[in-house]
């Protein structure tokens, strides 16, 4: 297990190094930079002033130097200074992280709580009316983008109730119920889509397992449906489901952009788009690295979970 973990960690570090190069290069190759944006807000361009600002921000240095400086600073915990806000990037990013993590966690919770049980029921009641209803429900979830569903929720609420969730962040200590609503609705919009995928994977994995000899044996021994399904079948069918949950969580972190925009939640994803538009390299680089770390950690967690769930991985 230790070797397995060490291998995974090694790959994770290499992935991060690769990611840092890709992020850095992509940003620099994109047309325009922060100085263009600054002049854009001024509505003109001046070559001399442009040079002075580039020097002030350190983006006149060779790209290799800029990259090495970024990595060196990153390793010492210095994320640099936001070009747009003229403030340490960490001070700008820090308050955004809990918002996105909370929303992603809640969304995945909704997805699992909705997806796994419906997947199990659908498999157990295969080809019944209930199965068809649940499959249509999941297909609808896959067909509706989260941002569309989010906007429909907002428009529905304002049309019928003249009310929408708070448009500024409400902390859980400030007002727990308002906080719950503020995060619950977007989590529902995002989680529904993910639940559809989880439901379908659970259903197909379970159906496959249900045809195995050992399940027939369990039925033959006269064990209850609950024991057969939950203890014998689901435990063996859960590996692909865990994989999907891991991938969905990682996907969610980067994919919350539009949902955070629609519900006006001050999270990392929404901020990232603005930072990209502003070519605010210190903010973009560090947020994307943060997302990469979350993705890698969630994959690592899933890999470790494999080891826990499947002894063949543990002892292999």
């Amino acid at each position: 297990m230790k070797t397995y973990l060490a291998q995974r960690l090694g790959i994770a570090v290499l992935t991060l190094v690769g990611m840092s190069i890709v992020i850095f290069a992509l940003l620099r190759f994109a047309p325009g930079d922060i100085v263009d944006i600054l002049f854009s807000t001024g509505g003109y361009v001046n070559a001399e002033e442009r040079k002075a600002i580039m020097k002030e921000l350190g983006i006149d240095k060779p790209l290799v130097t800029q990259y090495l400086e970024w990595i060196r600073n990153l390793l010492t915990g210095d994320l640099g200074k936001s070009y747009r806000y003229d403030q340490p990037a960490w001070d700008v990013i820090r308050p955004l992280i809990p918002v996105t993590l909370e929303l992603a966690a809640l969304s995945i919770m909704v997805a699992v709580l909705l997806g796994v049980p419906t997947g199990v029921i659908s498999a157990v009641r295969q080809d019944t009316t209930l199965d068809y209803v649940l499959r249509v429900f999941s297909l609808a979830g896959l067909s509706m983008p989260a941002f569309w569903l989010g906007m429909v929720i907002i428009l529905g609420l304002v049309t019928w109730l003249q009310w929408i969730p708070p448009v500024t962040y409400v902390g859980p200590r400030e007002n727990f119920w308002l906080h719950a609503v503020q995060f619950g609705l977007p989590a529902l919009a995002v989680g529904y889509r993910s639940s559809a995928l989880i439901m379908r994977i659970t259903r197909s994995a379970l159906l496959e397992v249900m045809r195995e000899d050992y399940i027939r044996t369990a039925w033959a021994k006269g064990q209850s449906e609950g024991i057969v399904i939950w203890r014998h079948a689901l435990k063996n069918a859960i590996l692909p489901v865990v994989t999907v949950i891991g991938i969905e969580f990682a996907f969610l972190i980067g994919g919350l952009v539009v949902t955070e925009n629609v519900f006006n939640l001050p999270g990392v994803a929404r901020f990232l788009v603005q930072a990209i538009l502003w070519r605010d390299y210190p903010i973009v680089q560090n947020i994307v690295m943060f997302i990469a770390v979350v993705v890698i950690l969630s994959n690592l967690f899933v890999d470790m979970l494999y080891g826990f769930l499947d002894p063949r991985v543990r002892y292999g």
Partner: protein
Amino acid sequence: MRRPTLVAVAAGVALAVVGVLSLTPAIGQTPKSGGTINIMAREDLAQGFATHETSTVATSTPSLPCFSNLVFFDPSKKTDSMDTIVGELAEKWSWQDNYKNLVFFLRKDVKWHDGKPFTSKDVKHTFDMVRDSPEATAKLRISPRKDWYANVEHIEAPDPYTVVFRLKRPQPSLLLMLASGYSPVYAAHVPPAAYRTGCIGTGPFKLKEWRKGEFIEYVKNPDFYVKGRPYLDGIRYVVIVERGTRTAALQSGQLDVAFPGETGRTAMEQLKKAVPTMVFQPVAQNVSDNIIMNTKKPPFDNPKVRLAVGYAIDRRGLIQAAHQGGAVLGAAMLPKPYGVWGMLEKDLAAMPGYGKAEDMKAQAKKLLAEAGITAQSPLKVEMSVRAIAIYLDMASFVINELKQVGIEATLKQIETAQWHATATRGDYQIGANLTGLGTDDPDANFYENYACGSPRNYSQYCSEEVMKMFERQSQELDAKKRTAMVIDIQKRLEQDAPRPILAQRLDYYAHWPHVKGLVAHNNIYNFSRFQDVWRDK
């Protein structure tokens, strides 16, 4: 320094008195103190509160409550003009030496938000910095409105409460430019870079918190120099990037006031249906849709081709199709009754592109034929446009119009980061553009957008004759004569067609009925100080 003449001082005092009186709320309404209001912001502050380093309403409008100007446009008057200028930091002012010196007499009871006293040193510091003078005590990173002050030779602060702007030649418009929302006074003891992260002003509200990407919160300034103001305890600009959510937030009452320029005709109609009590103030934005053509490169170096483009585009059709009727016809200056200097409808009707669409297109085809362009040998061009919906809507319409006269344009979307650099360098043939004017003033517009060498003259149009016309109108002291000159210039510009104006955008400024004392102006940049606004709830 020469002493001001008695007449000039009297005129200044009269204007100041009129201004102070006009700040009084409407009769029959007793303003109530207290409460806060939430105002819509469609994006976060672009460069913090550094108004002098940007030309975007995203910075200037949410910064207005923090600052004061020397003079400002009367908050209670809808149309900005020389007659509606009132004193803020200047108690009175006077023109001397045949409009070559402008003297401001400053208030003595003004404190900066950090408690330090305001003096003439702050005024000199600000405007020396803006015009990038060698005498400046600090330097701005960029100064978009440097050209506004090109005629200022020297700024003097002979005593702590007097400031003199000495001009190279008479320029009555200087006062209008100083009254713009883009002309706040900075504190000399605060480095200009500090305004990118915070705000030390003399305005009615003090900055409490700026939570990046989320909100900007102000609280009442208890030391504000106008006694009894502001009425509100605080205001909060809430940043909502998604348009649908912004409208829903206003409709649900989470926001009390929309952002200037945000409420188009369709949005107004939807909101009105949902909330019949919502208040809408139809005003002009002083933002025009226009076509920029590179006059230095073929084919638009040919005046006939440019004029043909001017003729080809059906302005009325554009107003209906792209604005659903939420715009009006106008040339370079805002038309009456929205503005002071614009052309009358009857004069406009004689301008290229303003007549009957079929006749105008026939005229366009004739001009193009003279330039060797026909349906058989169409002109193929790239239409550059900023990759933003409001630009794209207009560009799509224009492309269709041009096709009808034999110009085949393909859309070339340019990201915001590249747009101004592309336009300034002249790396384009033809473009669909939007132009906002900081103040409804001919100098501010002509020198910025049509003068030889101006970095914002994207079409790189340069005519010595027209430059002389600019100079003449700028120095003209007689208002009637000057208006006539300005109209002649507009006619000439439409004929030379470096930047044909297609429409002047309207805004249906929206707010809840409990927000009182808020008057939208025909210029999105020059209101939103909120010192006279109160909450009736």
